[in-house]
């Protein structure tokens, strides 16, 4: 399969398939038919798997197999016969038939499968044939199953990308910088655990929703960061991974529109992703936020994110950590120039974030904001206090931030030592080049 991931995040309806896909098929010069089939399937994959998994008593493995079967049929037929007018219904019907066929074949050997075939037929009998609006969206249950805390995070991430996101094994391997065999093995183990350990393909009960949703959002944010700050791979793949994380977060937000944290996380991702073109210079060098060409920020994405930030901040008091991080990103997004940034507001938001998420990294970021609001000496005092605690001694950004504040106070020898320590610890190539350049300037 191995079709390329979508390049740009479309800003269409929340969970709806990209309407451009269908238009694209009739325009052979814009995209190949196989590409269109692949994109349509990715958009509809999770929805079909979720419905079939329920019909199959939680057997996500069989459900995935059936949708994959339907994909093979579509690859064969659609380029020849054209895309059906209702692709989602076509996929579901075809996958359902394939699942029942497979079970019947096995039923020749085992009565049990035939029972299962009857159960599935029963479960999907009343599904609409043509009207796509009527197809139920059960992906939320699938998302919660894929991100069940009984699964290790190494399993949650590829399983979510595969079953909900519809990415292929090679695509997941590329996204996570893992060998394909490793991804395949993790998926096999994870699907087996879902099935055999009785992980329900269902929304958690209300009293568990917040905790379980936290796991789902952590998985999505991990996928996003994989794309945003990957240490290797080419830039296009990394952008695609981030766009994929945004697409899945959009699905979760669309399914739980009144929960604040999915809105907050979606806004946070959009605000970060809006800066993607400005983050790298012409030579691929890392460009810090303060030096970025703000005209290259994606205004459409920022405009979409800002109302989501308001929504996330007001749906629940006190706001959650994603809402607050999005609010901080929004302050940056709204500053016309770096010098016009409202750093006092950012310090206040970090104060609040520190109460929800009392981690050393949040304290470090707050210290940097204080340096911007009250001058480098005030920030440096906070960073030194943090460094004395020792928790971030191996974190290159602590030493980079320290070095920067020393440099701003003309303490070049101390700055050089801190840059050298940061360089020792940094692994990302672009960051290393940046730190090496700064170190040279201190000499």
């Amino acid at each position: 399969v191995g079709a390329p991931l979508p390049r740009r995040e479309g800003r269409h309806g929340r969970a709806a398939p990209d309407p451009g896909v269908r238009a694209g098929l009739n325009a052979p010069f814009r995209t190949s038919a196989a590409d269109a089939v692949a994109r349509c399937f990715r958009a509809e994959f999770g929805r079909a798997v979720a419905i079939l998994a329920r019909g199959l008593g939680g057997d996500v493995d069989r459900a995935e197999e059936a949708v994959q079967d339907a994909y093979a049929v579509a690859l064969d037929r659609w380029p020849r016969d054209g895309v059906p007018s209702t692709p989602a219904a076509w996929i579901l019907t075809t996958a359902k038939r394939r699942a029942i066929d497979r079970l019947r074949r096995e039923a020749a050997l085992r009565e049990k499968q035939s029972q299962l075939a009857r159960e599935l037929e029963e479960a999907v009998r009343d599904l609409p044939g043509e009207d796509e609006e009527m197809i139920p969206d059960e992906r939320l249950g699938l998302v919660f199953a894929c991100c069940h805390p009984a699964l290790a995070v190494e399993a949650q991430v590829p399983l979510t990308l595969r079953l909900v996101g519809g990415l292929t094994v090679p695509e997941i391997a590329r996204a996570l910088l893992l060998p394909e065999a490793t991804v395949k093995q993790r998926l096999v183990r994870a699907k087996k655990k879902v099935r055999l350990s009785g992980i329900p393909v269902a929304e958690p009960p209300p009293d568990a929703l917040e905790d379980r949703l936290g796991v789902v959002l952590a998985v999505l944010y991990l996928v996003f960061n994989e794309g945003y700050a990957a240490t290797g791979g080419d830039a296009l793949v990394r952008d695609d991974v981030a766009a994929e994380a945004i697409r899945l977060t959009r699905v979760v937000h669309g399914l739980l529109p009144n929960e604040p944290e999915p809105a907050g996380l979606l806004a946070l991702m959009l605000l970060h992703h809006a800066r993607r073109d400005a983050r790298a210079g012409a030579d691929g060098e890392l460009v810090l936020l303060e030096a970025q060409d703000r005209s290259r920020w994606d205004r459409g994405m920022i405009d979409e994110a800002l109302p989501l930030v308001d929504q996330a901040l007001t749906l629940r008091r006190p706001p959650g950590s994603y809402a607050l991080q999005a609010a901080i990103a929004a302050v940056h997004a709204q500053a016309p120039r770096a010098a016009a940034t409202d750093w006092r507001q950012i310090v206040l938001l970090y104060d609040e974030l520190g109460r929800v998420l009392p981690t050393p990294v949040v304290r470090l970021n707050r210290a940097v904001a204080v340096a911007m609001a009250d001058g480098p000496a005030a920030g440096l005092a906070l960073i030194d206090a943090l460094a004395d605690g020792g928790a971030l001694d191996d974190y290159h950004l602590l030493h980079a931030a320290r070095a920067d504040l020393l440099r701003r106070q003309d303490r070049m020898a101390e700055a050089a030592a801190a840059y050298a320590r940061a360089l020792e610890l940094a692994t990302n190539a672009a960051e290393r080049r940046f730190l090496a350049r700064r170190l040279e300037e201190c000499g």
Partner: protein
Amino acid sequence: MAATGAATTQEVGMRYLLLIYGDESRFAQMSEAETQADMGQWFEYDAAIKAAGASPGGEALQPTATATSVRDDNGDPLVTDGPFAETREQLAGYYMLDVENLDEAIKWAHRCPAAKGGTVELRPIQEFEQG
């Protein structure tokens, strides 16, 4: 075999063995009053899990000092004193669970008095087809 077994059993429910692990030396050091309070919690849990129809039963085990391990040695039983493995936490008891799914099993595991200070492990029962 197990594949389709699990798929259909999920609709009628799942069976788990809830394994209770704890540090034996801690129990040994408990005062009379502490032991009383601990037992009270267990009786309460036992009553609740049975009233909910979530368990057909469970038992507490004597400490590992009473364990005997047996292996076959060329047709003869090779009998040794003590448990199969020395661990920080020891198997102290179990419940059978008969519940809808893993989420419900986790709920009972979390309510189990051993979850505080000890560890509760859930293992799905491997269902075999009959005939």
